[in-house]
């Protein structure tokens, strides 16, 4: 895993002394309206460098909308998104990706007709030699080596020659994370990584997220409370597009508003 990102300068969190780690991602009064619906309403969140932050909330709370705004799929109606201090509001998805923000999808979103290795290789390639037209892609061994490192990290090294469409659901979810990792992100947004997984598979993916978290800042949307409590030190609760609570797992569990929201729905 150490070769995944050659430049390790990205995480001052672990090099800093007693000072609070710098903010990796900040949204300022972020709003997204669809017609009359406020999917996000003045959302302010600040995610520190190196942390694992969970976003929870009932269905329709605006979690996926938040992800889509951060990753450029949606252009926010108002407000700003700052990544490492830089305003990235409204940039298209490919520019966001190049800023080192990667995402995985709630509904598996891979290249079904390509092999597992090719799925990851093409993501790695987006950072190197993408515009080469006259050499065979296999002659760029640096990319293949990187892709293999990623596959080893997500536990798919054995399956690299299989068609992605032929993987089990759990393996496809791992591949989903592998593709995101292959773009060498500093911030990884995981949209329900354990959706539809068995208990065993869920444990494996939690272990995987812990492993890769050493090098990354992670933003995770998740329904499985056990997963959330196990991974995140800070949890943000969204409800009808607004942040209604933020704190440690213990604080969140004790928060009367959160209990009210979850009991009602």
């Amino acid at each position, binding site marked *: 895993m150490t070769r995944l990102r050659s430049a390790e300068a990205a995480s001052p969190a672990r090099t800093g002394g007693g000072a609070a780690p710098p903010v990796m991602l900040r949204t300022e009064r972020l709003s997204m309206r669809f017609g009359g619906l406020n999917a996000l309403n003045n959302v302010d969140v600040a995610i520190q460098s190196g942390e694992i932050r969970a976003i929870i909330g009932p269905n329709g709370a605006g979690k996926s909308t938040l992800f889509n705004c951060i990753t450029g799929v949606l252009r926010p109606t108002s407000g700003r998104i700052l990544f490492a201090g830089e305003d990235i509001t409204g940039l298209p998805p490919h520019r966001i990706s190049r800023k080192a923000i990667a995402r995985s999808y709630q509904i598996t979103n891979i290249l079904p*007709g390509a092999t597992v290795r090719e799925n990851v290789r093409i993501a790695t390639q987006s950072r190197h030699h993408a515009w080469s037209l006259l050499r065979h892609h*296999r002659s760029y061994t640096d990319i293949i080596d990187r892709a293999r490192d990623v596959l080893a990290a997500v536990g798919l090294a054995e399956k690299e020659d299989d068609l992605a469409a032929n993987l089990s659901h759990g393996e496809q979810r791992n591949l989903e994370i592998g593709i995101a990792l292959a773009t060498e992100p500093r911030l990884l947004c995981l949209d329900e990584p354990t959706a539809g997984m068995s208990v065993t598979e869920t444990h494996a993916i939690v272990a995987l997220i812990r492993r890769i978290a050493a090098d990354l800042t992670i933003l995770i949307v998740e329904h499985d409370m056990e997963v959330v409590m196990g991974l995140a030190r800070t949890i943000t609760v969204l409800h009808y597009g607004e942040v209604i609570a933020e704190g440690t797992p213990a604080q969140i569990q004790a928060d009367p508003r959160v209990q009210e929201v979850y009991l009602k729905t």
Partner: protein
Amino acid sequence: MTRRGLAGPAGYWVGFVVVLGLLTVAPLVLPEFWRRFVTEILIWGLLAMSSDLLIGYTGMVSFGHSVFFGLGMYGTAAALLALGPPNLWLALASGLVSAAVVAAFVAYFATRLRDIYFAITTLVFSQIFYVIIFTWTDVTGGENGLTFSQPPFSLPGLWSGRFTPVTLHWFVLAVVTLSYLGLRRITQSPFGMVLQSIRENEARTRAIGYHVERYKIVAVMLSGLFAGLAGVLYAIQNKFAAPDFVLFLVSGEAVIFNVMGGMGTLVGPVAGAAFFLVLREAFSRFFPEYYLIPVGVIFTLMVVFLPQGLLGFLRRRLNA
């Protein structure tokens, strides 16, 4: 070919050499009519391969390839009629530049749209150029097109002489073979892998950091350039440029070649072109009036029972 190519599966290269050998001897053994026919198949095959880069590899169906083919023809005609003594290479360059300019224009606008909207836009553009060419009689000869004499084959400083049907066939074969190898290399390059990623999942390709529109523009331009090259060859073989070849019917045939032969294989569309042209020739001898009906029936049956096309089953091996 390069070392990398030879390192590939041996079976592929054996097949390549056998087919190339057969096509090389073909004009020496075939009677005049069929000799000409095989040369034409190669030219239509090149058009089919060029559109395969979009249809089969990028997942964009173009119904406007006739405009690139046609501009290749008219560019050739322009160079042969307007500039000094007829020069083959000048004609080739002029045809390619004409096709490239139109391809850049179409690519810039059409790639903003996806799926059926892209297809319709390419169709609309090709029809616009058709109308311009058809009505601008002073320059294009209008309905009658332009005729010219065949330029001699010349290697500057080395050799020069008139084309015979056999040497013309070899010239076409050489251009088409080099184009095939070039297109094959492009589809296997990192760039080509991005095109295939766009075909498989455009949104995901965007999300991993590719500026999809830019790749599409380059794909359309490359495709248009090779289609233009086919037009140049056809003009040189037939010594004319005519508006019929800018009409959408030609574009439709290019799509049919792809579907019949097997999209995303490059050689499949060439086989599709050969199969289609042979069918049409055979039926037109027996049913001079209604030959398109049996051809259409066979095409429909193939789409239903052989959706992969003639060579679709070889897809993995042909792209290895």
